[in-house]
Structures are given as C-alpha cells and as structure tokens.
C-alpha cells in the first residue's frame, strides 16, 4: 500500500492536538505546586507526537488502553479534559469519580477504556478486548452474509495499547504478543521508547538490540520510527491501522522519543544526572511541536498569526476546564463503599 504524508489539514490537526496536550500538561505542572492535585502524576511533555499521530486514525468506536503516563493518550483519543482535571483534584466529577487520580483514567464515550499504573497490567486487557471485537465482527459477518449475500463485512474496530520500553520487559507483554499473533487480533502495540524506566537507562535493563525486532520474531508486522516527528508517526500509524482493520493481524510500532520532566511529578530533574550530559537539551531541539510548527510554516500551511491565535484559544479552553474542575464536589464518604461488586 502507498504511504501518504499527512495532508495539510491533517498536519494542522496534529499540531493542534499536540499543542493542546502540551499546554494542558504545562498547566497541570504549574498548578501541581499548589498541592491540591494530591496524586502521583506522570506527564508526557516531549512525547505528544505519538499519542496524536496514532489517535488521528482512530474512530470513536476504536478503543485505547494506556498506562501510568496516560494524559496524552486520553486527550488524543478525545477524552474529556475538564473531567481529567477534576479527577486530578479528587472530585466526584472526575472521570473516575475521584477514585483513580492521574494514573487511572477512563472515558468510555471517547473509546478510551482505561489506563492503570501497574506496568504491563493493561497490555493483555487490550488483547482481550480486540479478541472480543474480532469475535463480534465474525458473528456480524455471518449474520449479514445470509441477509445481503456475500457483502464485504465492514472493517473491524481496532484496539490500541500504549506502553513504554520498560513495559516491554514484563513477561505478560510477551505472553500477549504471542496470543495476539496466534489469533491475528486487530490490535496495535505502540511502544513509546523513551530509553528510561523511571531513572534507569535502557542499557541497564536490556541488551543492545531493537525492541521491534523481538515483536517481529513473535510474528507481528512491525514499524519503527521517530516518535518526535508527528508526520512520521502519522504515516506509520496509518499503514498499521489500515492493516489491523483489514484483518492483517496485530501491528507493532516502536517509536523513539524522550520525556522532558521528571518520571513522576511536575518538575524537571536534569540536575539528578541520570541522563547523559546534553541528552535532554538535544531532545528539546527535536521537540515534536517545534518540528511540526516548522513544517507548517515552511510549507506555508499556516502562519504565525494563526498559530498564536490557536495557542490563545487552547489556553482559554484549558483555563475554562480548570475553572470547571475546581468547582467540583467532594465525593461523599458513604460513596466510597459503592461499586465493590457489580
């Protein structure tokens, strides 16, 4: 199949979505110091292009699962921003009623099923979800074949699981890859390789070899690329999503990127010295927003005035989302007991 570079409107959309995530994360970081968002919070600043480039190809019926660093995935999939913020504050209006905080998000209307913080925990769940989608589709195909006589069944909904390079070390990851290939699931594995698990560099945890090649050995169709180039992620994900929709089985993308803030929390932590000298600065030069902005301006698809206005509009949206969230109500103590069993 031919791989298309993003059309002008797509490129602008990618930039808009990345900027929205960046500004939301920055606002969270700024306000975290007020000590009202009292939960462990993992920001995705520097890694926005991956969530945005992948989710650009998903419909509301497609599903996303994610991990501890989930704000970007949630927003890119169309998750409700005010309810995310209310969740961080622990209010009843939050997307989990305050029960989850930053590390447990959900927005079923948007097709964002869940993020949870036990590393690897959601990986098999995404596969199970994709398996069910596949079974439902073949039921529907059999049903429609008898009615409409051999009409092509509609393409399958796909499921996406976002995870990190650290997660790739968990056993459950490989158990899931095996099953996904065995059943040819409509599932996309998106590995955000930022070279660190907390503060431990990849070289202390894995031998020198490519992660995607291991997925390839499991029998997946694999892609690897620059996770800081939204246009590249967009193109790779387009092929991968199309493949998965058309019954070509699970797809694996390894995307290289870098987290700017500390692993958990609102601050920078370059002073701790676990990154090599100049590493963060170099990655900042390769900022996904900066690169897409330069493309937009270079190709004359946009101009400074338009981008300034976009920024102002997003800042306004985020301010309003905070204002809404901050008016939230406290979950009642009695409600704490609800929903232990369905």
């Amino acid at each position, binding site marked *: 199949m031919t791989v298309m570079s993003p059309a002008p409107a797509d490129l602008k959309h990618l930039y808009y979505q990345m900027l929205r995530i960046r500004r939301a994360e920055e606002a969270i970081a700024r306000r975290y110091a007020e000590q009202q968002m009292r939960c462990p919070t993992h920001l995705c600043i520097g890694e926005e292009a991956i969530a945005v480039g992948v989710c650009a190809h998903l419909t509301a019926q497609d599903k996303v699962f994610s991990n501890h660093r989930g704000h970007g995935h949630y927003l890119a999939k169309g998750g409700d921003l005010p309810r995310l913020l209310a969740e961080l504050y622990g209010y009843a209006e939050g997307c989990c009623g305050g029960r989850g*905080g930053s*590390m447990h998000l959900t927005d079923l209307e948007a097709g964002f099923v869940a993020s949870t*913080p*036990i590393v690897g925990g959601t990986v098999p769940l995404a596969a199970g979800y994709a398996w069910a989608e596949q079974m439902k589709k073949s039921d529907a195909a059999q049903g429609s074949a008898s009615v409409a006589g051999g009409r092509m069944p509609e393409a399958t909904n796909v499921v996406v699981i976002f995870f990190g390079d650290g997660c790739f070390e968990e056993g459950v990851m490989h158990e899931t890859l095996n099953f996904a290939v065995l059943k040819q699931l409509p599932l996309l594995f998106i590995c955000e390789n930022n070279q660190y698990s907390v*503060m431990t560099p990849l070289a*202390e*945890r894995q031998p020198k070899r490519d992660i995607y090649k291991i997925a390839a050995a499991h029998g997946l169709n694999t892609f690897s690329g620059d996770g800081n180039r939204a246009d590249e992620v967009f193109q790779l994900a387009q092929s991968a999503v199309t493949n998965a929709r058309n019954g070509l089985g699970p797809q694996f993308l390894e995307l290289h990127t870098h987290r700017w803030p500390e692993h958990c929390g609102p601050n920078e932590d370059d002073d701790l010295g676990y990154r090599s000298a100049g590493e963060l600065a170099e990655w900042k030069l390769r900022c996904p927003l900066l690169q897409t902005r330069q493309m937009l301006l270079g190709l004359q698809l946009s101009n400074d005035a338009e981008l300034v206005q976009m920024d102002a509009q997003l800042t306004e949206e985020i301010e309003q989302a905070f204002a809404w969230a901050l008016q939230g109500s406290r*979950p*009642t103590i009695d409600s704490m007991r609800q929903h232990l069993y369905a």
Partner: protein
Amino acid sequence: MRDVVMMSYGEAIRAALDDALAKFPEMLLIGEGVPDPKTIFGTTQGLREKYGAERVLDMPLAENGMTGICIGAALAGMRPVLVHQRIDFALLSVDQLVNNAAKWHYMFDGQQQVPLVIRVIIGRGWGQGPQHSQSLQAMFAQVPGLKVVMPTTAGDAYHFMLAAIADNNPVLFIEHRWLHHIQGEVDKHCPMAELSGAALLRQGTEITLAAFSHMSIEALKAATVLASYGIDAEVLDMRCVSPLDVESVAASLAKTGGKLVIADCAPELASTGHQLLSKLVLTHGHHLQQVPRLIAYPNHPVPTSHFVANHYYPGAEQIASAVLDMLDRSELTESVIGALQSDLPKDQPDRSFVGPF
C-alpha cells in the same frame, strides 16, 4: 557493650544493608531503582559505590522472572535481597514466591535452601490509590514456608534486616512508607535477632493493644494520651506476621484482665488480626474476658481522592475510642480524641512528604 545511635527507620535499613553487604560476600542487592539517584527513598544510598555494580544493581522491569532468577541464584549459594518500591509490584512474582521459594526446601526433603529476602514497601497517602497502597501481609503470611516480618521501629528494622539476610529461608520484609522518617534507637551490638516474637512497646495493666507495623505507632500515640487520663494500656508490636507470636499476647492478656484491641494496617478481610484472634481462641480462649476489637481498614480498595482516602484509614483516635468503650469510660472519648487531633493533612506522614510518590 551498648553502642546506641539515633537514626530514622530508612537509615536503619540502609545501615543493615551496608553491614550485611560487608559481612556476606555472597549477598546481592537488586531492584528497580536500587542504584538510581533516589536510591529507594535513600535506603540504598552509596551502596553501589561501596560494594560495586556487580553486587548492587538495577534490574529489568520483570518482577516475576527476576524473582525466579534470584531464587535460582540463592539455590546456588548467593544471598539476594530483591527490592520492590511497592508491595503491589510483588504481586507479579507470587508464582515464584509461593510455588518455588516457599516450598523448595520442603519438597526436596531439606536438601536445598533459598536464602532470599524480598523487601517491599506499603504505600499510603498522596493519592497512591487502589494499585499502589495495598496491604497484603496476611495473604503472604498464609503461605507455609515463607517468613513474613514487618518491623515498626528503627532498631527492629536494622536487626530484622540483618537476621532476614542471614536466614536460610525466603523472608518477606515489609516496610510501611510512613515509618521511613521515624527516628529510633539502634544498638548495633545486640546479638543477631530472631525473626519471631512481638515487641513490648509500652507496659500497661488495664488493656492490651496488639498492633501491626504503622498501626503500632498509632497505638502508642493512643496509649500515651490515654495515660494522661489515667488509663494504662499495654502496647505490643506484632513485628512478625509469620510466625505469629500468640504467646506474648496471651501473657499480656493474663495481666490486663483479658481485654484486647488489635490494630492492623490492612482491610478487615485481609487482616492478620483474624489469624491472631483465632489462634488465641484456640489456644488461650480463657484469657479473653471480653469480646475483643479489631481496628482495620474498610473492605474495599483505597480510593485515590484525598477527600475520601483520609477517612479510609483508622488511627489513634479509633484505637482510643475502642479502648474507652471496652473499659466503660466513654465519657472520656470526646476529650481524648480532641487531644489526639493533629493539624497535619491526613495523606502526609510528615510535612516534608509532599508527594508525588
């Protein structure tokens, strides 16, 4: 010779690891973040520099596999200490711990042994939430072949860590995150500790408080305030979960007229208190003169929101009310609870802890 130093619980753990690394050349210290800049809340600080990267090391994010790998190394004569920053992460390794480590010595007729320590930390506060603040001590204590300890004081942390490392069995060493900053006396020249037995934290005559881990701190707080109202409670720290020291509790009850309050940092369903009670009933039932009380968490996960999580955790106030109720002194409850109140937000162990982990 006594050589007592004051140090925090966290510093005591670090000191014990340091001394054990010096004493046992076969000891390994391994875990996610062990040599990173934050050094497991400071407890492994400087140890890689001192003992080398071969013995003090990070690991892949692979709890189950690495537990099995440490068991294998232990079989071959090493003494691994494997650290998880949360007990919740150790759940991934339950297969290796329960099916292999706990049974190896037994099922091979005593011919092989697994000198392994698993260090885990119970999280609490600052929105740790459902998957980062579980209390699983009772679950692990139900596995024959595993020793489970949860020391409360800095002194016990030091001596139990050394004893756990010297022990030729798998030992689950449970720390509570809210104990790490608390100062205590450590006498390094004590003889090697036994990994058994409760500790007497406060002598008393009217009622027995048997508490686990961080709840022992709460029980002591309650007892101190109760004393100023003329009520004399005895406080036992149940620092070993398996084996459980029922004898000390029974002996205390003989003194305090059979009145018992148990306080555990776990949901009621998952409380070791039940095990303690049933053993007491079976072996010393006549000592229980009054229906005992169990102070534990509600039977559901910890919600993240601090607005409700703050009400999830019982503490000194609930312990004191139970005591007053049992002693028919409820008229004091209001003033005792008033005296116990603190202005510290309930999701912080001390003011220096401002999250996020």
